[in-house]
């Protein structure tokens, strides 16, 4: 039983990390209806840029991170201007494809600038079991994961404030609810989209830093995005709480499945389990946990 909880907690904590990546997706999908496949590349881009700045210019991480933030904001607006604006009113799948193109571009660009070597990122948070918990319960809980979860919570809180308390946030919500309505009240749509992409870029940076310090900053970060998909399916493409809950569900269930079911079927089921879970979930709730039910009128 203790082992079960250990697995569960580990799962939930990695779920937090998934949620963080999924959050970027949700932001963009909510505001512009774009299924941003490039979110993974943005994570890689952000993390590598931060580390690159730090190492190549011998900057402190606390200088490199704000600099990267600026880069991500510029990138967000640039994407809106160069990629999205000309594609406005195009079919969803076209925009989706464009973000795949963007993925390639960003991957190429960032590796061209900083090289393709794997880099170490040390945020100064040791990734070791928390002693106290270990000794009290015998359970192993990673200190890093707990802190990451904390950062994630702060992030969500900041986003919530941004969304609910600021003028930009209101504009964002208006856009998310109804593009036409937003236009008619005089909000420049492009402006809002630029902001959303910039915010998503910052979220990507946070995710990139956390994942990067966990696994090293490298190309594989782009794959993190794939894990975010089942999270989105379960949480719904448009829901911020959904992304969090979805992340937790996916994280916990995939770990439990791998540990308790995996050995019976040869293991390695983590790769597909979240998807199959999401699929089964979809059959029950096609619009996701928090997604809005679409009433189709004819």
């Amino acid at each position, binding site marked *: 039983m203790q082992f079960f909880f250990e697995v569960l907690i580990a799962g939930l904590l990695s779920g937090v990390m998934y949620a963080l990546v999924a959050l970027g997706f949700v932001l963009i999908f909510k505001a512009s209806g774009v299924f941003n496949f490039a979110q993974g590349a943005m994570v890689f881009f952000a993390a590598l840029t931060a580390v690159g700045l730090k190492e190549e210019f011998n900057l402190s991480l606390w200088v490199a991170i704000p600099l990267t933030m600026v880069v991500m904001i510029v990138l967000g607006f640039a994407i809106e201007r160069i990629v999205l604006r000309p594609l406005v009113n195009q079919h969803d799948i076209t925009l989706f494809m464009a973000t795949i193109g963007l993925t390639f571009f960003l991957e190429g660009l960032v590796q061209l600038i900083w090289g*393709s070597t794997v880099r170490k990122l040390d945020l100064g948070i040791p990734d070791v079991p928390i002693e106290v918990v270990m000794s009290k319960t015998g359970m*192993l809980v990673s200190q890093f994961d707990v802190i990451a979860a904390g950062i994630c919570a702060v992030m969500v809180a900041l986003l919530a404030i941004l969304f609910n308390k600021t003028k930009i946030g209101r504009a964002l919500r208006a856009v998310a609810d109804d593009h036409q309505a937003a236009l008619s009240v005089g909000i420049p749509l492009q402006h809002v989209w630029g902001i959303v992409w910039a915010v998503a870029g910052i979220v990507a940076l946070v995710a990139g830093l956390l994942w990067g310090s966990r696994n090293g900053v*490298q190309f594989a970060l782009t794959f993190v995005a794939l894990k975010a998909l089942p999270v989105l399916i379960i949480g719904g493409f448009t829901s911020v709480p959904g992304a969090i809950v979805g992340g937790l569900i996916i994280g916990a269930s995939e770990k439990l499945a*791998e540990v308790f079911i995996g050995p019976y079927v040869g293991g390695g089921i983590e790769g597909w389990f979240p998807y199959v879970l999401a699929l089964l979930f979809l059959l029950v709730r096609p619009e996701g946990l928090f997604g809005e039910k679409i009433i189709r009128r004819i």
Partner: protein
Amino acid sequence: MKLKLLKALTVAAVAAASTVTSTLATAQEQFIPILSYRVGLYAAGGSGFFGGAIDYFNLVNANGGINGVKISWEECETEYNASRGVECYERLKKKNGGASLVEPLGTGIAYGVLDRLPVDKIPMTTMGYGRSDAANGQVFPYVFPLITSYWNQAAGMIKHLGDKAGGLDKLKGKKIVHLYHDSAFGKEPFPVLEALEKSLGYQLIKIPVAHPGTEQNSQWLQIRQANPDYVILWGWGVMNAVAIKTAARNGFPREKMLGVWWAGSEEDTIPAGDAAKGYTTMTFNTPGNYPVIDEIRKKVYGAGKGNLADKDRIGSVYHMRGITAAMLWIEGIRNAQNKYGKGKVMTGEQIRWGLENINVDEKRQRELGAFNMFPTIKTSCQDHEGSGAVKVQVWDGKAWKAVTPNWIQGDRAMVQKMVAESSAKYAAEKKITPACLPG
């Protein structure tokens, strides 16, 4: 400015002239296609390995070539993707007088070109990967898993673990986890590990990690649960660093981990940071510095022709592996020249013979400035590996250090038997009559 891009561009500008000459090879140059990958998931490995090979080519050329025959090469980006690799192979195989040999450094690509080699009469080396049974030159006349194959490595690993335990017989009852990349690569050592499990009586627990291996919490929880004596880490790419870090967070001692040689490079340990300290892996190079590497620093990098953008990587595991590979290729070509005519450009067929008759003993290693950099190697038609010896290295937090002073070998007899069986099966499937090709 330390930007890689700028550096690359300056290098490019300086190297432009030489590149042009190398691409416009004359008939007096021995052409070697480079199926490299410098982008994507495995870019770190690709750039190091092929960087090393090219550095060595430049060194050979700077020293006047092979009996006066200069080496020319052309790179083609495969992105570690089988079909792109095949395209590169096909594109370059006839170029500049024909490819001497190929080395795709990727299992998928190696499989993709496997059937084409005998037809095109181009030998392929698969140094430290690919089909282990290709060591049988009677069935795979054009494939050279030089130095050592996965099976020999696995046998070597068990040997090492046995040594650590104080003798192979002490392994009885021990738990060994095989944590592997869930692909052909990770499953390649199964037959050896299973066979040895039977004979030695240890308990083998196989735990797969799904590609690409960025999440290994559950695997390590399982490992913790199983509480094994050793963990064999059979990983590739990002999986390695994650494994090391996850081991650390789960409090599993790195000293009990033994990685495959694709899990034993600076690119695997540096991102893991302190967690990697004490982590051991297999290797077929002895880490350290060698005269040949100094020569490369001086003659190649000194002349601005170095291939690595980051000079810190000179002499790194992948770089050294690239140098080793290139060294053995050149040896093969040299052998061929000795037989078919010095100072001539060799055909793939002739080089195949050359590779089949490599004999790099300690004396030759010294001549090459690479004494003990890799095991001595002597190939033959029956044995395209030529060695089978491995070494163990440990990461001390800054660099790799050899653990075992001597080259170790596992149960070679058993492996050879398995090679014979497996290659016979392949021969039957492909309707090949095993035979040694005449010189």
